[in-house]
């Protein structure tokens, strides 16, 4: 009798262990819908950035209020990685009802931009051999793995709601939908609050939601073809809320992404004959380093103002004289000059020489100088190549006098 009881216990424990182990194994081996969705995204991103010769991506977005379109946008990008060309056509309908179209084309030698308002093509010839990177794989970026892990944790048990339907031709349909009951209360509250800030009544075309705001439904659907490429992805979110008059608004947000003409997309250079064209040559590409810093040698100045009797009055000038500049260092003098009527301000006037070394970017230099009172002050110099100006920032309180740290070149 004693032995029999033990046998029964052993058998029963084994059954339990077996049940657990086999299910657990099946669970680990089989990929969940969420994992398959992630794989689809990764494969698509990888193939787009490395493998495919050409493809077309179509992204549309629409926001509706009770079924009426508030705003929408549609972007079609044709990318030919083989020839390094791409063109994109976009159409946007804003909240105010404005319709905006734009067109862009680029290849190795030229960039063409069409402006709708002027119906003009701006053709920019590229002088530097720039390679327009068509598509960067976001999963290769630094920190992508950490983001993925955080996402996994946030998604948590919601990932069980991702469904997979496998079609006989090897393609997969992945879908998921969450109703208000399943959206975790905290996520619902935070996103509702965020959206309430959006629909705060400042823009008259948008409904002003004040109460009973909640996320009603979130759903998504994606089609992955037999090659593992994500051919389409549709995301929908429905938000409900009431305005001050107690009227219910149901706002729906839809995003649809489609990928088509894989390895079959032709990017056409637009035919500009008979069109209004403005030709342009690209400005020399300003790299991370300045090629010829010598161009900054010379005198730079800006004005010192005060506010007097409700008007701005110029009381003097500040000067930065760069006497010597090369790749590694910048040497010069800073001084201030005051007009004769405002000599009393000259008491705070400063004058010093500097000899500073550039930081690694060869645009910036920092140094310290000691005032007569014995205090040390930090100064930051930044050479602004785009504006042709020098930013000379002295870390001090300007008091009543007004000036900025941008210095313009003095030309005789």
């Amino acid at each position, binding site marked *: 009798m004693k032995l029999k*009881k033990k046998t029964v*216990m052993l058998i*029963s*424990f084994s*059954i*339990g*262990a*077996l*049940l*657990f*182990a*086999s*299910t*657990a194994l*099946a*669970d*680990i081996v089989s990929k969940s819908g969420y*994992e398959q969705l992630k794989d689809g995204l990764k494969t698509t991103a990888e193939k787009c950035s490395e493998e495919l010769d050409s493809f077309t991506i179509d992204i549309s977005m629409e926001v509706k209020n009770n079924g009426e379109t508030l705003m929408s946008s549609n972007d079609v990008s044709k990318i030919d990685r083989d020839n390094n060309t791409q063109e994109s056509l976009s159409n946007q309908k804003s909240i105010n009802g404005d319709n905006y179209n734009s067109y862009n084309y680029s290849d190795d030698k030229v960039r063409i931009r069409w402006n709708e308002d002027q119906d003009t093509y701006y053709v920019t010839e590229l002088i530097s051999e720039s390679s327009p990177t068509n598509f960067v794989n976001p999963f290769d970026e630094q920190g992508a793995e950490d983001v993925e*892990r955080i996402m*996994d*944790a946030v*998604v*948590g*048990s*919601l*990932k*069980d*709601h991702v*469904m997979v339907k496998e079609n006989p031709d090897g393609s997969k349909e992945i*879908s998921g*939908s969450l*109703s*208000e*009951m*399943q959206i*975790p*209360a905290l996520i619902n*509250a935070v996103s*509702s*609050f965020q959206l*309430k800030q959006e629909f705060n009544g400042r823009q008259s075309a948008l409904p002003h*939601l*004040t*109460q*009973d*705001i*909640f996320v009603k439904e979130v759903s998504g659907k994606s089609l992955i073809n037999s090659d593992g490429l994500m051919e389409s992805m549709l995301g929908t979110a429905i938000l*409900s*809320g009431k305005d001050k008059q107690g009227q219910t608004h149901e706002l729906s947000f839809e995003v649809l992404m489609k990928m088509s003409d894989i390895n079959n997309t032709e990017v056409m250079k637009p035919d500009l004959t008979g069109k209004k064209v403005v030709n342009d040559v690209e400005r020399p590409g300003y790299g991370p380093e300045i090629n010829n810093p010598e161009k900054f040698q010379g005198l730079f100045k800006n004005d010192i103002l005060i506010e007097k009797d409700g008007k701005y009055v110029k009381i003097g000038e500040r000067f930065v004289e760069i006497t010597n500049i090369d790749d590694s260092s910048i040497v010069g003098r800073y001084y201030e000059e005051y007009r004769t009527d405002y000599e009393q301000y000259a008491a705070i006037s400063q004058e010093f020489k500097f000899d500073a070394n550039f930081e690694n970017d060869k645009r910036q230099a920092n140094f310290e100088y000691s005032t007569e009172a014995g205090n040390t002050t930090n100064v930051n110099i930044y050479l602004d190549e785009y504006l042709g100006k020098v930013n000379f920032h002295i870390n001090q309180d300007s008091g009543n006098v007004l000036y900025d740290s941008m210095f313009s070149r003095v030309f005789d």
Partner: protein
Amino acid sequence: MAVFQAALINEIEKLYKKKKVMVAIFISLAVIVVGQLIIVGMRTGFGLRGVGSVEFPILVLSVVVNTILPLLTALVAIDCFSSEFSNNMMRVTLTRPVSRFKIFTAKVTTIVIFILFNLFVLFAFSLLAGFLFNANSATVAGFFKIVLSYSVSLIPMIVLALGIVFLANIFKNGTSVFFVSILGFLILKAGAVLFSQYSSLFITSQLDWYNLWLASSFPFSRIGHQLLIMLGYGIMFFTAGYYLFDKKEY
């Protein structure tokens, strides 16, 4: 069967006499009141709806299955076993002409009844609060979903209780069982976040499984899997717990 019934009634009466039930009702009520206050505050303060009358019980459930329900279950499970070991009450219980298996089963059944009762209290109170204070969004389907969620939540709670019973039979001291249970609970919860791909294997992640039953497209395979995993856990814990209980000398 009559013997088992007698043992069961005996256990239930012991539990009832210990006022643990009153504590459970009181805590459940407090959770619902606090939750409702937060929702009302959110609604008047921020204009967010928070929840409708149907969603409130689900919100309460989502909070309690991870907090007070396991806690109260642990308390009762430990009470049924450990405190009897230390009070030497077990000797008295065991001197009755009832087999140890029946006593063990009666104790487990008592815990299950307690969980059921606690779920029912939460269900009734939260439904009432939901209807009194929240925007009316009630539908028959919604009501059915609440009943379903609360009912299916019983299963992972039973498995959890069996796990605690197993622990209670390893350690004699009630306090250490309680701490080990809580520690284990937290470790499993953290593990489910860190190793999210294996989270379905942890007993603590099954606590949320009522969510699956609410999905718009019914996930048969997932529910089946989780049920099998819980069944596996349940059988193992029950057998191991009974084995220890049977071998113990008092």
